[in-house]
């Protein structure tokens, strides 16, 4: 423990992050090295261009990059970077909910919430039809026509929308994914 404590000296908020995210010290160090690698000009924070360079081919790259930044901010510092990545840590099976501890970042609920916020860009708590259409457009690109997109979006909303407000709120989103193993689907093994 002592050696890791000393090696975490270069990492801002190292100890606190260890506790918050549940990452091991070695992993935190590696993430810090990665952060410094991405931070090409050694500013100590990342801008969106740094992240976008990695995600050039990803259809939803902008959204992912946007998720790292707090609303209004233009830079990401290391703690925020790590906090976002904490969502993708594999869940421990034995974690039971007790009222005292705050929900860890990689619980099923938090993972779903993170994904939901990627859809819901205007942060009004609902995925509206236009937002869904945008996502579909990004994912399917130029291969389909506008009408196909419309009908898919229409059908998706009809299936999921239980309270008939023509938008998908977080509970409906969670319900439509109840059969999917989110713990597996949204975990990156590297972050164990």
């Amino acid at each position: 423990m002592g050696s890791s404590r000393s090696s975490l000296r270069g990492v801002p908020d190292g100890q606190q992050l260890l506790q918050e995210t549940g990452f091991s010290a070695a992993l935190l160090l590696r993430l810090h090295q990665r952060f410094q690698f991405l931070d090409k000009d050694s500013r100590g924070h990342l801008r969106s261009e740094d992240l976008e360079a990695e995600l050039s081919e990803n259809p939803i790259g902008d959204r992912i990059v946007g998720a790292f930044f707090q609303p209004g901010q233009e830079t990401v510092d290391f703690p925020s970077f790590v906090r976002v990545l904490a969502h993708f840590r594999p869940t421990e099976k034995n974690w039971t909910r007790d009222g005292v501890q705050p929900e860890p970042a990689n619980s099923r609920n938090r993972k779903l919430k993170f994904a939901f916020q990627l859809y819901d860009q205007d942060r009004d708590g609902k995925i509206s039809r236009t937002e869904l259409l945008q996502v579909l457009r990004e994912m399917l690109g130029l291969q389909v026509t506008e009408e196909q997109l419309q009908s898919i979006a229409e059908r998706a909303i009809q299936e999921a929308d239980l309270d008939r407000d023509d938008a998908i709120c977080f509970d409906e989103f969670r319900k439509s994914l109840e059969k999917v193993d989110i713990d597996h689907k949204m975990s990156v093994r590297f972050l164990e």
Partner: protein
Amino acid sequence: MFSRMAPRGRSGLGRSLAELGLLLLAILVLLDGTVLSLEAATSSEIDTHEGKPGTHKNTSKKSFPVLGIKYDDVSVPFEISLWVLLASLMKLGFHLIPRLSNVVPESCLLISVGLLVGGILKLARDEVPPVLSDRIFFLCLLPPIILDAGYFLPIRPFVENIGTILMFAVVGTLWNAFFVGGLIYAVCQIAQDKYSEIDLSNIGILPCLLFGSIISAVDPVAVLAVFEEIHINELLHILVFGESLLNDAVTVVLYHLFEEFMESGSVSAVDALLGLVSFLIVALGGVLVGAFYGILAAFTSRFTSHTRVIEPLFVFLYSYMAYLSAEVFHLSGIMSLIACGAVMRPYVEANISHKSHTTIKYFLKMWSSVSETLIFIFLGVATVEGEHHWNWVFLTSTVVLCLVARVIGVVGLTFIINKFRIVKLTTKDQFIIAYGGLRGAIAFSLGFILHSEHKRIFLTAIITVIFFTVFVQGMTIKPLVELLAVKKKHEAKRSINEEIHTRFLDHLLTGIEDICGHYGHHHWKNKLNRFNKKYVKKILIAGDRSKEPQLIAFYHKLEMKNAIQMVESGGGSKLNSTFPSTVSMQNIQPKIHSPPSARPSERALPQLTKGREEEIRQILRTNLQKTRQRLQSYNRHTLVVDPDEEGFDDLILKKRRMMELDWKVCKTSSHKSSNAIYSQAYVKPGAENVPTIKIDLASPQSPDSVRLLDEVVQDQGLTMSLPSSSSRAYKTSGKDDGRDQQKLLRCLSDPGPDVDDDEDYDDDEPVPT
């Protein structure tokens, strides 16, 4: 026998049918016996007849034979047909007695029948034909089952768990083989049974190891037969089943290795190393051969648009060739077959017509079903046939050692594997995996072709283990699954939401992996998908379907199924379900968002008043035929009712009549019909007294329901001429018309079993998300 089988308190019809079936069986068996003995008689007659031709001609003129028996010419096909008929009748019989088939798994019943038949034959003729020869088994009986398994292999869970499966298959089987082989040798040395005439200590270490390698392999046929009835969750099913498929390579290598060693008499370190190399060659070679034939099949299917009838033949032939080619080079035939089926499936399915798809599915299920039945019956017969060397020490220790080895192997391997898995395997899972390690006919056949002097005792032991696993473990696994409350299979369809969101999450995870700089699971999957989309699909899939994104294809299928459901179940009542699209509605009235109301049907048809809706329902009810309830679940024993029989003609005719009621198309110029994929239902408000509904099944290139009906009705032998005014609106370039009609025919000709369609949706890409 009859009193035992007669069910208590069942309906009279069922009882009499079951008894009839048994009577038929007995008759068949006796017929078989008498015919075979008659064959001996007639052949001797013919001999004597030909012995003195000359004298006969001179002395008397033979009267013209009005009726004669000449069995020789047809003996082989006749007997084969008799056996297959027996097997099928048995299957029929068992499912007429539901109580029995609930308690006892089918495999046990079939083995019992085989024992019975073998016993009867032995009594009748004092010898039993050697039916389970290895050639029949490996060349005729095994391939259909493996092909069925490989073609419908759920790729996604298989690839996700491939590491675990390989560990169990390779390391587990090796451990089993050496453990059982070594300890059996020890037992043989130690145990000296004074009452038995067999001297166990004669059996050397190498024969014991050979025996161990034969007995250690989990058998896919037995696993399939038993697991199919217990419906456990997907993960466990794929783990045990995948292991049973992949351990074939290990078994083949070990078997040949130990046989070689036995011949040469000595083992060296170089030989062991060569064994390892040979394993890699056998496994990878088998997969490559299979993949090669799979790609050939996919490529061939690209050009079959004009000869749809022989499409299924290509699938079967290429697969069988893959199996045989692998066997020629002593590679693993099973792995070759699996690879062939899995590789060719996504491309072939994109190319062939829906009817061919149905044909392939049903033929494979039929053949594998019959094969499985025959295998178990033959197992029973072969048990009666051989002379057995009973040695209680050997037998009991074999059974015990197999169980112990399996348990230790599974527990030990899971401990290691769980360090690498995200979703860990629990103790319950481990128990099921260990308990599901059934041995079957492959072990028997391998034992059959042994050239060892101890063949008989080995065979007896193998049969004992097979009987033990199939009977004891097979019968008790179902109540154990219930007792342990193991998670069962979800019998649910994927919704469009799940599809969209899982795709989204895949992109998200790929992005996160890229940010972390880690080349993980998703990264490689992404790369493979991209490669597939860019190059492979263009070559192997015909026409424009190669560009269709998978999400669209999935959505398309969903819509088709919905439309079929709507038509078949009478339309009116189904209006309440998810209505396909409101894009057409947008063209009629500019309002996109209707006021929120209680039912989705009202949202989709906002202008419809209650009264009007009732009238529509009335019309639909009187015109459309209410079809029978569609079977929702699917297994090997139930097939969906064939839509081509009774009533389908009427359905089409009535549907056409209904569509003629309203032939005006609601369409504005902005409607890009050439690319409309969805099924639309239009409502024309106010033009006539009764707003009628036109259900229009559309397809990518040319949504032309008119043409569809033409095609279909002509199939049924009727002729009709439909007004071509509407078709004008839809006419596009005719190059893909043929395929579109096929596509439309697809949806009308075969609704398909629901559960299986899940597999269809999932696996359009080689490594789907």
